C-alpha cells in the first residue's frame, strides 16, 4: 500500500509538471537560441527594427490575416451554426471537407488556391473581369490565408453553437423571434466566446502561413515570405534580427487578442 501511495505521489508531483515543463521548455529553448544569436549583433537588430520593408510586411500580413478572418467569420459562422444544428447524413462529409486544410500539405493548399483563383481559374477569371486579381496581389494573400484558416474558425464556432441548448432558440421563437432573430439574439451571443477564440486561432494561423501564400502571391511580401527572402539572399545573421522583430510583434498582438477573448463574459450554460 505504501509503495502504491509513493508511486501516486511521484506521478502527481513529478510526472505532470515534468511533461508540461518539457513542452514549454522546447518553445523557450527555440526562442532563447534565437535571442542569443540576436543579442550578439545589436546593430543588426536595430537595423531590422527600423527597416520599412519589415514593417510593411508586418502591416500586409496583419491586414490580410484580419480581412481573411472577417470573411471567414461572415461565411463560416452560418456554416458552423448549420453544422451544429444539423442531423443530416451528409454532415460527416461536410465536416471532412471543412477539416481538409488541416491535413493537406500547405503546398497543396496553395496549389488548390492557385487553381481556383488564378487568372483562368473558376473564381479568378470572373473576379478578374471585375478588376479583382489574385496572382501576386493582396487579394491572393487573403484567399490563401482564408483557405488554411477555415477549420480553425469553423470547428471552434461549431463547438460554441453546439453548447447552446436548442430549447433556448425554440423559446425565443415562441416569444416572437423569427429564425434569424433567434440566431442573432440568442445563439450567436452565447457562442460568441468560442467564435472569437476560433477567430484568434485562425488569425494566428493566417499570420504564420507561408507555403499556401507563396504559391499564389509572392508579392506583396508577408512576414513569412520576407523571412524566406532574407534568408536566401542575406544569410542567417540578417534573418535572425528580422525574425526577432517579427516574433515580438506577433506575440504581443496574439497575447492581446487572447486576453480580449478570455475577458468576454461567459454565461452559465446550464441555465
Amino acid at each position, binding site marked *: 500500500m505504501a509503495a502504491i501511495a509513493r508511486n501516486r505521489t511521484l506521478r502527481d508531483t513529478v510526472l505532470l509538471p515534468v511533461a508540461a515543463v518539457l513542452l514549454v521548455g522546447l518553445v523557450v529553448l527555440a526562442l532563447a537560441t534565437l535571442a542569443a544569436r540576436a543579442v550578439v549583433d545589436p546593430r543588426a537588430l536595430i537595423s531590422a527594427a527600423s527597416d520599412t520593408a519589415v514593417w510593411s510586411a508586418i502591416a500586409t500580413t496583419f491586414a490580410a490575416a484580419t480581412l481573411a478572418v472577417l470573411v471567414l467569420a461572415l461565411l463560416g459562422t452560418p456554416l458552423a451554426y448549420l453544422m451544429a444544428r444539423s442531423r443530416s447524413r451528409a454532415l460527416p462529409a461536410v465536416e471532412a471537407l471543412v477539416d481538409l486544410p488541416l491535413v493537406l500539405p500547405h503546398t497543396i493548399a496553395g496549389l488548390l488556391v492557385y487553381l481556383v483563383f488564378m487568372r483562368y481559374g473558376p473564381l479568378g477569371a470572373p473576379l478578374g473581369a471585375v478588376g479583382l486579381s489574385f496572382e501576386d496581389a493582396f487579394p491572393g494573400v487573403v484567399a490563401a490565408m482564408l483557405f488554411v484558416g477555415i477549420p480553425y474558425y469553423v470547428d471552434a464556432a461549431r463547438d460554441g453553437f453546439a453548447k447552446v*441548448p436548442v*430549447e*433556448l432558440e*425554440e*423559446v*425565443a*421563437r*415562441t*416569444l*416572437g*423571434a*423569427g429564425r434569424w*432573430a433567434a440566431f442573432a*439574439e*440568442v445563439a450567436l*451571443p*452565447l457562442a460568441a466566446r468560442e467564435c472569437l477564440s476560433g477567430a484568434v486561432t485562425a488569425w494566428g494561423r493566417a499570420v504564420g502561413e507561408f507555403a499556401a501564400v507563396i504559391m499564389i502571391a509572392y508579392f506583396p511580401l508577408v512576414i513569412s515570405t520576407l523571412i524566406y527572402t532574407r534568408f536566401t539572399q542575406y544569410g542567417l545573421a540578417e534573418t535572425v534580427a528580422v525574425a526577432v522583430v517579427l516574433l515580438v510583434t506577433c506575440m504581443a498582438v496574439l497575447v492581446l487578442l487572447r486576453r480580449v477573448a478570455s475577458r468576454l*463574459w461567459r*454565461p*452559465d*450554460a*446550464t*441555465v
Partner: protein
Amino acid sequence: MLRCEGCLVRAGTFALRVDRLHVDPGEHCLIVGPSGAGKSLLLRAVAGLVLPESGTILLRGTDAAGLPPEARRIGLVFQHYSLFPHLTVLENVAFGLRMRGSHRRDARERATAELDRLGCAGLAGRRPATLSGGEQQRVAIARALATGADLLLLDEPFAALDPATRAICRTELALLRKSLGLTVLEVTHALEEAGAHADRVVVLDRGRVVADGPYGTLAAHPPDLGAARALGLENLFPADLAGGTPEAWCFVPPADVFVGPPGIAIPPGILACTGTVETIAELGPLSRVRLLVDRPSGQVRLTGFAPAGTGPLTPGARATARFPANAVRHLPV
C-alpha cells in the same frame, strides 16, 4: 382554444398520432405517459416547432398550419425554464415584447409591470444563473405572459424543484390561471401532485392517445393496462391473484384494499393474499402500507390502508391484504 384532429407528427422514426384532442379555453390539461410516448413532441407540434405531416391543429378556431411559432401567441416553459443566460431577468421578460416590435424602452416598462404582477420586481437586474429554481420558474412564466400569450405549454416545469417549492409554484400557477383565464397544457410525471389542479388528463402511450378524461375518473376506471401504467396507478397485477389467468391483468384501487395481520378469517366475496410489509407511511388516522406478495408469475406489489397504530405492522412483518372481489377491475392489455 386548441383542437388537434387526425394529426400525424414524425420525429425521426417515431410517429405521434393524435386522432382527437380538444382543450377548452381556461382549461388545465395534463399530458402524461411513459418516456418516449410523444408528450414533448405534442407540445412542440402545438408550438409550431415541428409541423404535422397530416391532420389539423386549430388554435382559437383558426388553422395553425401556416402559422410560425412566433405568430401563435403561446408561451412555452421547459423543465429548466430556458431563460436566456446572457440577459438579465428584465431583459428576458422584455425579449418577446422587443421581438414583437415594441420600442426597447416600452418593452422594459411593460416587462417591469409584468414582473411586478408576478411578485418578481426585485429580480429585474439579476442574471438567471443567480436565481433559485422557484424564481426562475416565475420569471419564465412572466416572460411567456408578457407577450400576451393565453395558452401556456409547460414541459415538466416543476420537475427540478424541491417538493415544498413545487407545491407553492403549483398553487401560484393555479391562481394565475384562474385570474387571467389562461389555458394550460402541461406535460408531467408528477400526476398525483398535478392531478388536483388539473381539469383533465390525456394519457399518451407509444405515440397514441390511450385515455382522456378527469383524473379521478381515469384513476378509478383506467381504460387499459397501458393507460393505468401511464397514470402511475398502483395495484396492477396479473389476474391469477384474483383467480384468473396470469396473461390477463387486474387493478384494484388502494382505497379498497385493507391490510391487517395474517390469519384473520376471510368471508365470502373477499379476496386475500399474504405478503411481506415493504413500507408504511402514517397518513393521519390511516397508515398506507405497501406489501410484497410472492406469486408463481413473480412478485406483486400491493398498496392498501390499515388503521394507524393498530396491529403489529412493521417493515418486514407478514401481513394480509384483503379486498372485495367486486372491487377488482379487469384491464384490457
